[in-house]
């Protein structure tokens, strides 16, 4: 006969294990006055600080939609919920996908089927955005993406995927237009720069979906604008040291160094550049790394003169967009920091969701899909300098991209003991004289 302990243990363990799996999350019977939106971001690992920014931006937008904000001159501040849905509140269900596409997909299923969200917003990492959007496409659930800029995402013919932010093509074109502007003397505070001082480019992209596609795009487009790529580096993700990459760039003697980095890498690059006394004329970053408050805070004076593409610059907001300035102030009260490209885009993403829901007047996926395809949000309603939000399409193979988006270029300038992001492009919106060339290291 078998011993009692043993059989008890065996049965006990299997039962425990199996019930653990079987524990169904108590599907909360959400009040009809609540609309759930699933939000997926990296909140652990190397991108946790970025995820934190996105979260703050998204939550602020939801709060502005849900509550009355008499001091904000933006329509949705007066809404107290989605008007066309009887004032239903938006509830964000935030989850951490840990930068893992599989986990993102699994969590998306949880959000869609168990949490019964009406749609999803996310996911920052382009790779996770891909897998999550695939799930949404299969389930027929709308997904609005606010922070991934890989051009491929809107070129897959998906029917349930929309993106508010401009993609890397727009940003790359902006960069070259900006460089041309420098040559033509259009940039505030800088005279005409000889083309020879600007046409040798070094490109350094992090070896991820975002970095690789960004770098390739730059490389492809450079010749069209009369630039030469003298050094092209895709550098190892999670690299403990970037000295030799920096040396390789220095040896190529470029005029402009163009980064497509996440934040930790570009901090390391800047420190290495300083130790090598390497100062090209222009150091430009493709948003993600260089735009974050962490970048400026951590590098301090060393960030002075770094140029970054972005979609939101507080200084511009203060000068030309009063509502943006107001919202920036609210955000600053909450977090102690200005809105950045990252958090402002997340804010706009949730805002777009709110407008879409309002337009749809229903939480039916089909209605939302229709609303998404037809939506137009006026530039006066949003904090960006964009021409508004409309998911049309500029090219036949593109679907769901906001065609009214616009990029900006800002420059970190060290003023009174802190870094301020000043706009240098579009030229009309310039908020300060540009620092050119990138200052020599002390």
């Amino acid at each position, binding site marked *: 006969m*078998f*011993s009692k*302990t*043993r*059989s008890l*243990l*065996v*049965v006990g*363990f*299997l*039962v425990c*294990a*199996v019930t*653990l*799996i*079987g*524990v*169904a*999350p108590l*599907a909360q019977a959400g009040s009809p006055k609540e609309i759930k939106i699933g*939000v997926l971001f990296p*909140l*652990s690992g190397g991108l*946790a600080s970025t995820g*934190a920014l996105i*979260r703050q931006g998204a939550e602020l937008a939801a709060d502005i939609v849900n509550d009355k904000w008499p001091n904000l001159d933006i329509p949705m501040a007066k809404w107290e919920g989605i008007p066309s849905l009887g004032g239903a509140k938006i509830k964000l*269900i*935030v*989850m*951490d996908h*840990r930068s*893992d*596409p*599989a*986990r993102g*997909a*699994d*969590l998306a*299923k*949880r959000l*869609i*089927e*168990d949490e019964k969200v009406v749609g999803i917003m996310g996911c920052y990492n382009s*790779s996770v955005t*891909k*897998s999550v959007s*695939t799930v949404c*496409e*299969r389930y027929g659930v709308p997904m609005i993406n606010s922070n991934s800029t890989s051009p*491929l995402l809107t070129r*897959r013919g998906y029917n349930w995927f929309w993106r508010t932010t401009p993609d890397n093509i727009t940003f790359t074109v902006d960069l070259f237009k900006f460089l041309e502007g420098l040559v033509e003397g259009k940039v505030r505070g800088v005279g005409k720069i000889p083309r020879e001082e600007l046409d040798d480019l070094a490109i350094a992209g992090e*070896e*991820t*979906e975002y*970095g*690789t*596609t960004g770098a390739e795009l730059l490389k492809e487009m450079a010749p069209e604008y009369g630039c030469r790529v003298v050094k092209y580096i895709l550098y*190892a*993700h999670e690299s403990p040291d970037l000295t030799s990459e920096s040396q390789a760039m220095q040896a190529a003697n470029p005029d402009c160094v163009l980064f497509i980095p996440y934040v930790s890498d570009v901090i390391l690059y800047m420190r290495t550049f300083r130790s090598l006394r390497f100062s090209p004329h222009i150091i430009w970053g493709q948003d993600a790394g260089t735009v974050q408050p962490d970048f400026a805070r951590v590098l301090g004076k060393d960030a002075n003169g770094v140029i970054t593409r972005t979609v939101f610059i507080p200084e511009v907001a203060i000068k030309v967009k009063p509502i943006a300035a107001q919202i920036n102030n609210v955000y600053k009260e909450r977090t102690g920091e200005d809105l950045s490209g990252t958090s402002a885009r997340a804010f706009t993403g949730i805002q777009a969701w709110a407008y879409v829901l309002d337009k749809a007047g229903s939480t039916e996926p089909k209605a939302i899909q229709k609303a998404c395809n037809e939506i137009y949000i006026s530039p006066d309603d949003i904090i960006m300098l964009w021409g508004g939000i409309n998911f049309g399409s500029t090219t036949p193979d593109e679907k769901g991209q906001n065609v009214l988006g616009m990029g900006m270029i800002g420059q970190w300038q060290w003023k009174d003991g802190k870094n301020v992001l000043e706009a240098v492009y579009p030229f009309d919106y310039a908020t300060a004289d540009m620092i050119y060339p990138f200052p020599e290291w002390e």
Partner: protein
Amino acid sequence: MVGKMKAVVGVLKDTFSFNDLPLSERIAFAAFLVFVFFFPWIVHTSYPRVVMIRFLLFAMYGLGWNLIGGYGGQVDLGQAKNVGFGAFATALMITWWGVPFWITVPVGITVAVVESFAVAYPMFRLRGHYFAIATLCVALVWQKLFLFWDWTGGARGVELPIKSAPNFTYMQFGTIGYHYFIFALFMAEFLFMNWFRKSKMSYELQAVRDNEDAAASLGINVTWTKVKTYLITAAMGAVGGSFYAVYHLYIDPRCVMQLDLSILIAMTAMVGGAGSIWGPILGAAILIPLDMYLGALLGGMGFYGIDFIIYALIIMVIAAREPRGIWGIIERARRRGYVLRG
């Protein structure tokens, strides 16, 4: 001819028979099978189903790893590379040429087995930690290469074309379909393991694990035994990878070939109890739901890393209190019973 028939019958009997196991284990396992089989009809919410699929996938990974790591005693921390080979073979062949899923599986297995064979002989010159780090290094080299190469999609990854479900050529279903798909794969591997654990090879492998010199003195080719097992393990990893590709429909080297995956696979077997057929299943049944529910319930709460902290504490407690895994508790109880009676 008759001899051959007899041999086949013997193999079949070994594969499907559980008579040598105690009644309690058989009952528990039968209950488990019934539960898993009817799971999608018991539980109507999606996430538990997703967790169940992930559990079955990792139980399968764990069963495969258990061959080399449990029965063979070789700490292999590079199983992710085989998962990657399987996943990429399937994903690339389907996207490029529209090859049906079931043809891509043997290709993935072949790639994994050929690669494993190529590195196995040098690898098995190494012992203990040197071996563990070497497997880890080889797997990482492949990951870096897959990221570097263009034809694999590099860091951009591979997206499989979406078909209208259910589709048996490209194996795309709804959650329930995938549940039975992975359940079938799991059962196939489980039955193989049931045959294996009783086979001559299993005894030889365990002899090699416990003492190589003694094993050699009994006519066992030590290296070849290890290599053989390593290849079978590789093949099993590749099958799991192929499933992963058609299940998630997106892969990149960072998600299918990463270090964490290798470690998690080995950990499922270790936590459950390496070297027993139940170990990996128990381990996956504990770790996967734990990980998934902690992540889903606490991950978005805004306390950074709280889910990891709890998860890590549980792993540490298991490793410290039960170094032989959960199955170790049961075995110990059993042995104590034996000693006291005998």
